[in-house]
């Protein structure tokens, strides 16, 4: 019966793995590093993974496990691992799947820190990163060779707000026995079913929608159980021993454990609470985003507005199909110059100048001078980041108040 329940019911009512001795309605915060055992034999079996017990909170923790189980239930995934951030999710996954001499295929239209991870952190360790336009499948297929481990993409790119055809990417990766990995941060779990569209692994920042309003930093690796790990050269040997548990085993008993990017129990508690109101907040912020995007489109001082939910977006149709008509709460718009952008931003009274998404508050940033400030102008151009663009991460405030704030700030120009 549980799988027939709706998203919010599952998020609110999912059972604990072990009954709470006091009947607590929320999983308590187990702020304990270690856990005691009755015997040395029990401790040995637990270290070998032969008893489902927690040993040390860097590896597993009851509050974090409860959060992972909630995500697993609502996504119908095979396995979930919660980490300290979205970037930890991406780095842990790639280090587990690929090694020196391997390659991954992606696009330069990525979150700035993800691009930096690929270029500046992983490349020097021997990982080759091939860039292409993910909407040009023929070119993409030519890049695949016997060392290619995955295609990595963002379901809606940040801040370019491009949308790739996920079914087409999934067919391509399945035909070539490589993984399709998606950063699904911007397309919330409650209306976007990555598993149905053939995404093997999701990585996402739970800091955003899930945390419940910018309360805590966290990340998730979601294994949808679609990939045969014998097809990954690096993990084939493990696949004989662990079957579909291969990725989870490799992470939990090796890379995730050794790298130490665990989620804290307190953050897991906040993010479990955030899940309970997730769908309500997503609905409100998406409605706000479309209304604000339409308002911005009507303003003469605004040069362009980019939001996949707008009919003027080249991605409107595919976004509607893939994201159940709710393409997130992020939009960008352009003024005439960087100077105008800064003047506009400095005049805002309600909207905060800050770098986050899916907070309850509406936040604005000028990506070219902040998230992408470390990149040369030519590279920014290749990355689709313009000096005239601002990114608005829309919150759940009353729409008319946000529009009034934008209106009065535009008047200064």
């Amino acid at each position, binding site marked *: 019966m549980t799988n027939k329940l709706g998203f919010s019911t599952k998020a609110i009512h999912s059972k604990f793995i072990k009954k709470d001795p006091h009947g607590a309605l929320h999983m308590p915060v187990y702020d304990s590093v270690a856990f005691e055992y009755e015997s040395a034999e029990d401790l*040995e079996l637990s270290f*070998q993974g032969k008893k489902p017990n927690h040993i040390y909170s860097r590896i597993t923790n009851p509050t974090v*496990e409860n959060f992972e189980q909630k995500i697993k239930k609502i996504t*119908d995934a095979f396995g*979930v691992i919660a980490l300290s951030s979205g970037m930890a999710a991406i780095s842990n996954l790639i280090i587990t799947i690929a090694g020196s001499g391997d390659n991954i295929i992606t696009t330069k239209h990525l979150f700035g820190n993800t691009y930096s991870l690929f270029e500046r952190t992983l490349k020097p360790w021997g990982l080759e990163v091939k860039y292409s336009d993910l909407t040009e499948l023929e070119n993409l297929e030519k890049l695949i060779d016997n060392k290619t481990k995955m295609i990595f993409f963002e379901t809606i790119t940040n801040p370019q707000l491009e949308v790739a055809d996920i079914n087409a990417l999934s067919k391509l990766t399945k035909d070539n026995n490589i993984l399709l990995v998606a950063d699904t941060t911007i397309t919330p779990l409650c209306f976007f079913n990555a598993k149905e569209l053939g995404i093997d692994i999701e990585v996402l920042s739970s800091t955003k929608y899930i945390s419940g309003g910018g309360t805590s930093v966290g990340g998730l690796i979601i294994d949808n159980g679609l990939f045969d790990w014998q097809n990954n050269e690096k993990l084939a040997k493990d696949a004989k021993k662990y079957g579909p*548990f291969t990725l*989870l085993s490799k992470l*939990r008993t090796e890379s995730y454990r050794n790298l130490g990017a665990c989620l804290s129990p307190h953050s897991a508690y906040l993010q479990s609470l955030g899940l309970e109101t997730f769908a309500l907040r997503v609905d409100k912020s998406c409605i706000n985003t479309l209304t604000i995007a339409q308002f911005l489109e009507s303003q003469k001082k605004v040069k362009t507005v980019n939001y996949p939910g707008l009919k003027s977006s080249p991605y409107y149709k595919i976004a509607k199909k893939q994201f159940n008509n709710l393409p997130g709460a992020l939009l960008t718009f352009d003024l005439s110059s960087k100077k105008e952008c800064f003047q506009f931003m400095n005049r805002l009274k309600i909207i905060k100048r800050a770098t986050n998404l899916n907070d309850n508050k509406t936040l604005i940033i000028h990506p070219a001078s902040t998230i992408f400030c470390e990149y040369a102008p030519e590279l920014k151009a290749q990355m689709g980041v313009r000096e005239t663009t601002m990114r608005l991460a829309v919150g759940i405030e009353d729409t008319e108040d946000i529009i009034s704030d934008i209106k009065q700030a535009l008047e200064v120009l």
Partner: protein
Amino acid sequence: MKIKVNNELQEIAGNNLNIADLLAKNKVEVPDMVSVQLNGEFIKKESFETTFVKENDEVDFLYFMGGGKLS
């Protein structure tokens, strides 16, 4: 017959014990989250009923927190 289950030697009556029976006999907690290895090789969930243990087999029930239940 004698088999080893999670490091422990067990005496089994008869020759007709499959992996599903063995999970029940050992009262394995949260079986949906368990990965089963027979002599170091992974056993698929759909083969639990048809895979029988034999003398000197080693069976391990392994837990990887955060995962399980085959789709």
